[in-house]
């Protein structure tokens, strides 16, 4: 059997040829793997993109990564407090989506919910390993504002850092619920689906989480710019 090497020749979007060349030992090349793709738009639903990826359209995967990457990294970063680990988690979640693509049942779940669920589980595993290794969230990395700060964003940066530190002290499930509800902006039913709990349980977790945050940050009112009553 001839060994084949793959060489990327074109990665165009918008109907361009999106494929690989495979060259065998005799030097012959043939077009394999990727289909010629139609233009993608922002309005194409996630599950349609995933179906297109399952048929070999790599540009659909790029579009899905752009849509969900930042949110996944954000969730994992809030959970773990470490940017590099957060990127690993988000990449792993996307890889699992690629593997799941051929068996994806359209309409049974939302791609975004599924990705959050996988990322959350991966974060939980990572935190469990840390606990076994006796490493606290505060010990891993000092939370920093991942966006570059400019002078007029200093206040936001301080608030963001303080919140991240306070979140790190919350029980894990409260932290997850608060992040998903108040930072990622998911609805309670969506959070329930991600965490596999009832809407009432989500409400309870977020309420308790917020109470704990309000208490934990009470001593930092001035630092956060709330001296005048917020």
């Amino acid at each position, binding site marked *: 059997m001839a060994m084949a090497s793959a060489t990327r020749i074109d990665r165009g979007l918008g109907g361009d040829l999106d494929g690989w060349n495979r060259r065998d030992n005799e030097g012959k090349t043939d077009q394999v793997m990727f289909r010629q793709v139609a233009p993608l738009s922002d309005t194409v639903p996630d599950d349609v993109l995933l179906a297109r990826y399952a048929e070999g359209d790599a540009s659909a995967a790029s579009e899905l990564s752009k849509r969900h990457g930042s949110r*996944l990294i954000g969730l994992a970063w809030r959970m773990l407090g470490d940017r590099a680990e957060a990127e690993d988690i988000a990449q792993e979640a996307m890889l699992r989506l690629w593997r799941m693509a051929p068996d994806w049942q359209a309409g049974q779940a939302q791609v975004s919910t599924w990705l959050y669920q996988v990322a959350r589980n991966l974060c939980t595993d990572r935190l469990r390993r840390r606990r076994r290794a006796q490493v606290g969230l505060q010990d891993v990395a000092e939370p920093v504002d991942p966006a570059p700060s400019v002078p007029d964003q200093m206040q936001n940066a301080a608030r963001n850092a303080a919140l991240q530190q306070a979140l790190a002290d919350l029980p894990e499930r409260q932290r997850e619920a608060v992040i998903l509800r108040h930072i990622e902006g998911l609805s309670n039913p969506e959070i329930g689906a991600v965490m596999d709990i009832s809407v009432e349980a989500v409400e309870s977790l977020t309420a308790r989480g917020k109470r704990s945050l309000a208490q934990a*940050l*009470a001593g930092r009112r001035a630092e956060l710019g709330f001296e005048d009553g917020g």
Partner: protein
Amino acid sequence: MADKKLTGLELDALFEAASQSRPVADEAWLGRVAQDAESEIRRRAGRRPPSFWQQISGVLGGWQGLGGMAVACGAGLWIGIAPPASLSDQVAVVLNTSSTVEILSETAFDYAMVLDGG
């Protein structure tokens, strides 16, 4: 005196700040994820669906199952074409033997008639 807890509005301001400073998936990360996606496509393309004969072989238990079946078929065919002498005798015995089952013997019948007659 204990510090006053943050109000709901103040917490919302913190969440807003956090939402605005969400990490962004940079080009390097997107590139790594695209590589994963393309590798997965290549992996799937290299994994052909099993052929008809591979499926049949799988159902029958692989090469062990097929080997056993081939031996059994060969032996059956051989016995059919050239049966061993001892096997022929036994088959003849089975096929040519008739048996009589005597439900009521003659003596027993006579005895019954005597009893019936009183």
